[in-house]
C-alpha cells in the first residue's frame, strides 16, 4: 500500500486506463495545463490528440465525446466545475441517457463525465453546486462519487471500463485527502453500485458521501465517547443504488440519517428516504432525517458556512433520531 491524495488517485486511474486502451481519451477545457491536478502531466504522455482541449464551447466539447462514443470510442469528459455541465445539459442528460434504450438497446454510450463539485471554496452557486442528484434523476446514466483515494482510483477505473454513460464527479473539499491505495501495477476496480460500510456501529445509521462522509466519521468519533455507536454507510454509487446495504444496516440500528450535500428539493436524500419508507418501514423506530442544503442558491463568501452540512448539523440530526 502507498499513501496518495484523492486527486492523484483519479489521475492514476486515467493513466492506467489510457495505457490499456487506445480508444480512451479525455476532452475538456484547459486539461492539458491541468486547471485541476487530476490531468497534470497527461498531455506529455498521451499527446494533444488524446488529451483534447476545446474552446469555451461546452456543447461542442461534449459533442466530441458523444460523437466519438457513437463511433465506438471511450471518452472521458471533464466539465471542470460540475455546474458547467448545465451549459450542455440536454446533451449530457436527455440525449445521452436515452440513446441506448430509445434505439432498442443495440449500442450504449461508454462516456465518463467528471467535474469538481461541492462547497468549501466559498465560490458561490455555479462553482459550488452538486450535480449527482440531478444526473441521478435522468434515466440511463450511472452516477457515482468517491470518498477516499482507494475508492476514487477503483471507481474511476470501473467507470471507464463500464459500457454505460457514467457521471462521476469528485468533491473539491477532499481533493487533497490522503489515503492508502495498492502499489502501482496492482490492477483493481471498485464496482459501481456497491455501497461501503465505512464504520460499523449499532445505534444509528448515517449515510454520507465525499466531504460529508469525512464530517460523519468525525461526528461518530465524538459520539462514541458518549457511548453512541454510529454505522456510517458510503453509498459510493447513486445509480445504481445499493439500497440493500442500507436496509441491512437498519435491521441493526432502526434509525437513519441521510446526509446529502445538495438542495433539499428533489435531492437524492429524498429518494433514499422514500425508498427506505417503502421497502423498510417496519425497520424504522424514528422518521428518516435528512441533512441537506436549504433551497436557496449557494451563497459565496463567509455566508457559505451557514448553509453547508456541517459536523454540528449532522450531530444534531443524529441526536434527533435517537431522542
Amino acid at each position, binding site marked *: 500500500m502507498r499513501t496518495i491524495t484523492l486527486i492523484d488517485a483519479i489521475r492514476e486511474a486515467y493513466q492506467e486506463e489510457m495505457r490499456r486502451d487506445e480508444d480512451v*481519451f479525455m476532452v475538456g477545457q484547459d486539461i492539458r495545463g491541468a486547471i485541476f491536478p487530476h490531468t497534470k502531466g497527461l498531455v506529455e504522455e498521451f499527446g494533444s490528440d488524446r488529451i483534447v482541449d476545446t*474552446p469555451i464551447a461546452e456543447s461542442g466539447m461534449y459533442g466530441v465525446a*458523444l*460523437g466519438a462514443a*457513437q463511433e465506438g470510442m471511450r471518452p472521458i469528459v471533464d466539465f471542470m466545475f460540475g455546474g458547467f455541465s448545465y451549459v450542455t445539459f440536454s446533451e449530457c442528460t436527455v440525449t445521452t441517457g436515452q440513446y441506448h434504450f430509445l434505439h*432498442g438497446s443495440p449500442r450504449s454510450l461508454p462516456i465518463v463525465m467528471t467535474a469538481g463539485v461541492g462547497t468549501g471554496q466559498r465560490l458561490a452557486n455555479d462553482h459550488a453546486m452538486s450535480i449527482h442528484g440531478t444526473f441521478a434523476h435522468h434515466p440511463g446514466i*450511472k452516477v457515482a462519487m468517491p470518498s477516499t483515494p482507494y475508492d476514487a482510483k477503483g471507481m474511476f477505473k470501473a467507470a471507464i471500463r463500464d459500457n*454505460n454513460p457514467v457521471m462521476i464527479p469528485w468533491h473539491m473539499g477532499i481533493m487533497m485527502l490522503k489515503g492508502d491505495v495498492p502499489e502501482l501495477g496492482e490492477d483493481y476496480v471498485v464496482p459501481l453500485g456497491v455501497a461501503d460500510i465505512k464504520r460499523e456501529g449499532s445505534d444509528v445509521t448515517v449515510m454520507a458521501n465525499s466531504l460529508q462522509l469525512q464530517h460523519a466519521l468525525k461526528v461518530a468519533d465524538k459520539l462514541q465517547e458518549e457511548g453512541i455507536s454510529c454505522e456510517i454507510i458510503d453509498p459510493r454509487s447513486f445509480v445504481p443504488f445499493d439500497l440493500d446495504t442500507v436496509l441491512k444496516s437498519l435491521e441493526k440500528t432502526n434509525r437513519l440519517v441521510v446526509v446529502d450535500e445538495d438542495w433539499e428539493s428533489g435531492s437524492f436524500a429524498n429518494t433514499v428516504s422514500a425508498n427506505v419508507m417503502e421497502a423498510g418501514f417496519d425497520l424504522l423506530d424514528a422518521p428518516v432525517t435528512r441533512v441537506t442544503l436549504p433551497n436557496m442558491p449557494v451563497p459565496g463568501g463567509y455566508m457559505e458556512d451557514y448553509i453547508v452540512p456541517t459536523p454540528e448539523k449532522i450531530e444534531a440530526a443524529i441526536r434527533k433520531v435517537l431522542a
Partner: protein
Amino acid sequence: MSLNKKQMIKLFTNLVRTSHYDKMMYRRMMQGKLIGFYHPAEGAVAPGVGACTFLKKDDNLNPHHRGHGIIHMVSKGIDVSTFLAEHTGKETGCCKGRSAFHFHYPDDKVYQQSGFIGHNFAPTVGWGYAAKRRGKSQVVMNCSGDGSYGEGRAHESMLMCQNWQLPVIFFCENNGMAIFSSSEEMHPTEDISSLAQGYGMPAVIVDGQDVFAVAEVAMAAIDRARKGKGPSFVECKTMRFNEHDIGTPDLKGWEDRSEEEHADMRKREPVRLATERVLADAILTQTKIDGIHEASLKEIEGVEEFADNSEICLPSEEELLADVFVD
C-alpha cells in the same frame, strides 16, 4: 464536378423514389397509419438526394428532420422499411418500436434523429474527431435547416471543425421557414452560409431545386473533406411546399402564406425540373422515366406491407426496465 450519365440516372431515380416515399408518409399520416407527426419534405427533396446519393456506407450522416430522414437515408442506400415499422410502433422497427420517429442505423453511420433541433451539431464534431483520429477517409454529411443555425451549437461546431480541419460538410437546406418564422426575419443576413465566413470556412450557395446542381456541389465538398482539406459549407436554397407538420396551419409569422407564394413555389417542383432536364439531355426516355416511377411505387408498397404485417410491440415494463442499461 460534372456528372456522367450513370450518376444522373442514379440521382434522378433517388429523387423520384424519395418524393414517392414522402407522399406515402403524408398519406399514411392522413390515414392515421403513422404514429406521432410528420414533417413533409415536398418541395425540398433535391438537397437530401444530392447530398447523400454518393456517400459511402462508412460516411457519417445526419439527415435533415424534414421527411423524417427518409430522403437522406434512402439516398444513402439504407433500407428504411424498418423505420416505417418503427414509425408505426411495430416490433420489427429499427428501434424495437420504442422510438416513434427517432431512427438509428449505426451500421450505416446514422446515429440519431434528435427531437431537439440543432442537436446534430455537437456530435458532428465527435464524428469528425473519430474519423481524423483513426485516419480513415470517412466524411461527415451534416444536414439541417436554416432554423437550426440559430442554435449556438451550430457555431460551436463550425468553430471546432474548422479549428481542427475535420472532414465535415455543413449542409444547410434553407427553405426559408422554421415552423412559422421566416429565415428573412430570424437571420440578419440573406444567406445562412455567410456565417461560414466568420470561421474562415469555404462556402457555396446552390439552387436546391436542381438535384444535379446540388450533387455537383456536394460531391466537390465530399471530395475536399475526404482528401483532408477540412470542412466546408453548402447552402441549398430550397422550399417548403406544405405546412411545417401535417395539421398545423401554414403561416408566415401569424398570417397564412399566400396563394401566390404557393403557386410561385410549385413552378420549381424538383421532380418536374429534373424530368425536363433528363428528357432534354436525352439521359432517359419517357418510358424509362415511367418505369422508375412504377418501380418506386412497387418498392414502397413492399415497405408498407412489411410495416403493416408486423406486430405491434408491447413488452412488459420489466422487460423495458432491463434494457435501460447494458451489462
